[in-house]
């Protein structure tokens, strides 16, 4: 099956720093999403981005489907950005199965 690899696995940054999170996937996909999981476990939709570039405030994302990778950029990090960031892809034409990477755990220091 498709493999979704995220890097780096862990990232510790000072407040105000910028960061880039990467997601590589091993096969073509229908959809790609980025999620932020907060300390209470809630998965928050950040971007639905099967291709192209999107921006939302301090966050932006780019997916290059032909090269099978996606990047999530976080600028001017805040402590509230801490948590786990997941890349997740959909491949099936029959069901809604989402395949998640293992996540990048981001810790922003005050």
């Amino acid at each position, binding site marked *: 099956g498709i493999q979704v690899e995220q890097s780096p696995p862990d990232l510790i940054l000072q407040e105000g720093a910028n960061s880039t999170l990467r997601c590589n996937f091993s096969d073509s996909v*229908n*959809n790609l*999403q980025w*999620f932020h999981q907060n300390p*209470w*476990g*809630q*998965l928050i*939709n950040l971007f*639905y981005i*099967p291709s192209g570039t999107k921006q939302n405030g301090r966050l932006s994302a780019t997916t290059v489907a032909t090269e099978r990778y996606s990047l999530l950029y976080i600028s001017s990090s805040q402590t509230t950005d801490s948590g786990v960031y*997941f890349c*997740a892809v*959909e491949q*099936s*034409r*029959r*069901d*809604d*199965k*989402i*395949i*998640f*990477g*293992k*996540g990048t755990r981001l810790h922003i220091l005050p």
Partner: protein
Amino acid sequence: DAGVTQSPTHLIKTRGQQVTLRCSPISGHKSVSWYQQVLGQGPQFIFQYYEKEERGRGNFPDRFSARQFPNYSSELNVNALLLGDSALYLCASRLWGGGGRLDTQYFGPGTRLTVL
């Protein structure tokens, strides 16, 4: 509008018991999926239901079962609980189901199950 809701929020069971988890999708959403997330891992797909029919099943044993009701809410049942079933169980809803959809799935807050 309310998001995806799940109940209960926390649950403690002992090995061998049975558990039922509940999910209510976003109003108007007809597709519900269930995921298991063990500590330190990404969520793993268990089931998807659309219009009360099972559309997809992940690699989980037959102890796991689910169903969807006419109001599109769903229940996940796990029988003969094992210690390894301890996890966060997440429910997601989508407007339409069936794969290849160009829209977003939305997740509920999860039910944290502890098996002792």
